[in-house]
């Protein structure tokens, strides 16, 4: 018991230094104070998902650095022929711009959600979903263009077969994330629009009550998907 007194400092208050840090973390009820269950769950899910994307990218890098065939030149493969000139990466630049913009509208939606501006929140979320859908649409265009030029998961006209395999797998997995995000954005936007978060009405399926924080949690996911795209852009298109 003498031991306990030493650890708790002179006033019997909280311990200091590293012990204080650990005891704060380990304090009762909640490790992360003022973080709701939903938000904590999304953060931990994103950590796990980070591992998924990291491992996808590391596998791609290992395939690319160990292949003996030439790797197709990204600035030629991903160029568009517009107005008589080949513009390298022009489509990807637009896609990136669209996705980053959607993060902007998402952030505005979160801001409005905090002010409980029902209409603005819903409209900004729908705008975000529209930008996301535009991104997926442009990705579909990019895929069909490459497929028409002969790129397949098992080969392509310019070099290493792993190019097509990695491209379709990684952008496809990211595109799936964006598509799922669009669907959930629309679901949450519909709940905002109906006023569920003002009236406390429960959702029809899982009977959760939900509040405006759902918008912010949705935003965490959306910004994450956006951030992942930056890495895919850097490692796949710019390398």
């Amino acid at each position, binding site marked *: 018991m003498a031991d306990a007194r030493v650890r708790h400092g002179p006033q019997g208050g909280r311990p200091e230094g590293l012990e204080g840090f650990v005891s704060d973390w380990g304090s009762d009820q*909640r490790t992360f104070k003022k973080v709701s269950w939903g938000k904590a*769950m999304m953060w931990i899910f994103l950590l796990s998902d980070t591992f*998924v994307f990291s491992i996808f990218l590391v596998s791609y890098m290992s395939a690319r650095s160990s292949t003996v065939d030439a790797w197709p030149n990204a600035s030629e493969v991903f160029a568009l022929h517009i107005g008589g000139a080949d513009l390298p990466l022009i489509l990807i630049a637009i896609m990136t711009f669209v996705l980053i913009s959607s993060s902007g509208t998402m952030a505005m939606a979160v801001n409005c959600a905090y002010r409980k501006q029902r209409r603005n929140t819903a409209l900004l979320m729908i705008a975000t979903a529209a930008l996301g859908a535009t991104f997926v649409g442009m990705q579909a265009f990019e895929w069909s263009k490459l497929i028409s030029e002969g790129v397949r998961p098992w080969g392509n006209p310019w070099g290493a077969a792993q190019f097509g395999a990695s491209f379709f797998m990684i952008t496809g997995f990211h595109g799936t994330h964006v598509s799922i995000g669009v669907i959930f954005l629309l679901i949450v936007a519909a709940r905002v629009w109906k006023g569920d978060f003002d009236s406390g009405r429960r959702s029809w399926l899982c009977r959760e009550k939900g509040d405006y924080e759902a918008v912010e949690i949705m935003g965490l996911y959306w910004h994450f998907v956006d951030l992942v795209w930056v890495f895919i852009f850097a490692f796949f298109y710019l390398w």
Partner: protein
Amino acid sequence: MANVSDRPDAGIPPAEVPDLPLPHPHTWWGRYVFSQDAKYIAIQYSGTAIAIGLVGLVLSWLMRLQLGFPGIFDFITPEAYYQFITMHGMIMVIYLLTAIFLGGFGNYLIPLMVGARDMVFPFVNMLSYWIYLLAVLVLVASFFVPGGPTGAGWTLYPPQAILSGTPGGQGAGIILMLVSLILFIIGFTMGGLNYVVTVLQARTRGMTLMRMPLTVWGIFTATVMALLAFPALFVACVMMLFDRLLGTSFFMPALVELGETLSYGGGSPIVFQHLFWFFGHPEVYIVALPAFGIVSDLISVHARKNIFGYRMMVWAIVIIGALSFIVWAHHMYVSGMHPYFGFFFATTTLIIAVPTAIKVYNWVLTLWKGDIHLTLPMLFAIAFIVTFANGGLTGLFLGNVVVDVPLSDTMFVVAHFHMVMGVAPILVIFGAIYHWYPKMTGRMLNEAMGQIHFWVTFIGAYAIFFPMHYVGLVGVPRRYPEIDASFITTPVAGLNAFISVAALVVGAAQVLFLFNLLWSLRAGRAAGPNPWRACSLEWQTPDTPPVHGNWGKDLPVVYRWAYDYSVPGAPEDFIAQNDPGPRIEKDVPL
């Protein structure tokens, strides 16, 4: 005595989150089938895991029949044998052990032990079980497709996993296996997020992290590891599925099969091995850490003594979890990797022995001068310590590159990992079921049947795996479907037959255990709320078995750690965690 005041809950902070209403089901389906109560989900998880585990058990019988008595059982062709080892391994490691420790014990014990009403997102938790069940069904379906299940070995190494020479390689077997694993990971992630957030954010007043029972620490750390390790298996499964279905060459080098050049080329099978073991080694500890935690609690309760070195036990769990992410390539010493890699991974592997040894010493020191009650849970706990120490010692052999290389792919390896991650965790599962069954059902398991089950299982497991080390040392390789007397010496053939008979007997004892589970449901002795006189919160519920919501009107308040046994001066030999009781401060702040 600076912190002690006369008010019992002085120093316990007020509730930070208001009590949330639970969605109480009104229909039979909602209550018993699509239940959102973690306790029901736990029982569903455990029941499914045990059912598929029985399939794994029967497969091991078939393998042992073939190995012990080669040439007698005509229906066990080499192809069938490969399918048996593959499915046995996958079922036992993933669908039984992982599912029952995290989905079963995690679901049942976490909310009760930290004083929560339920998991934080019961609906997601329910989905987790149903996706797990779907994964199991897809796995079982592979037994019924043309060509049968995959026979690639439980590690599914490419390129052979998806070639026509391997059973199921060009059929649907490997596809269903990979799809089932992907489903399992998705389902597990849903449950795992629940377990982690419940431990971090939904504890009751007074339940600091350093007052949690070690069971919760073990399951929590294992779940965090699983959330970071399963992504590697997920990615590997997706990529191999593409190799098989779309003709990509992630893992497939240029190959000639039966004189025919395949269209694959340029991929690296080694990358799969890295991805698989980046998942596979943490997986060992995903199974072991919950067992460590549970066994600590069993020993403390049944030796009526506080756990020795609680703080070190917690840190050891966390350190083992962290270290297990940087040892994976010790499974790949013979893959042709750079010798310096082997040096690095051998070093990290041996370093893990330090925190693990701390745990073993602390268990033994907890027993030291304890009031040891040789109840069934205690017997299983002691059997675990012995078995785990034995398996750990052979781990030191295999962790060293020079010793591992000649022992690689022999029965020695099989004996090692069955001791350390097969038998040892299973013993803990049995002990845990004997320990918590009274809380789950209100009745004790039959003691006589339990004693027979324990002694047959314990001695039988040693009869199986001790001789197997020797069989491996003399050079009998693993994964050979037929080892007849022309290939090995007569004594080794005799040992093989002996091992097989022991395996049949041990398997039969498990049927007695399952009978006991069902029989005691009706005929078991009434247990009362706290038959073991244990401190931790799950024994302090107002109802036994606990009802939906666990705690009645008010959540419990926690005043002490979970190990106040035989406290001098206390009226009883245990003080429950929610008992303000005598002013004896046993807090562990760090």
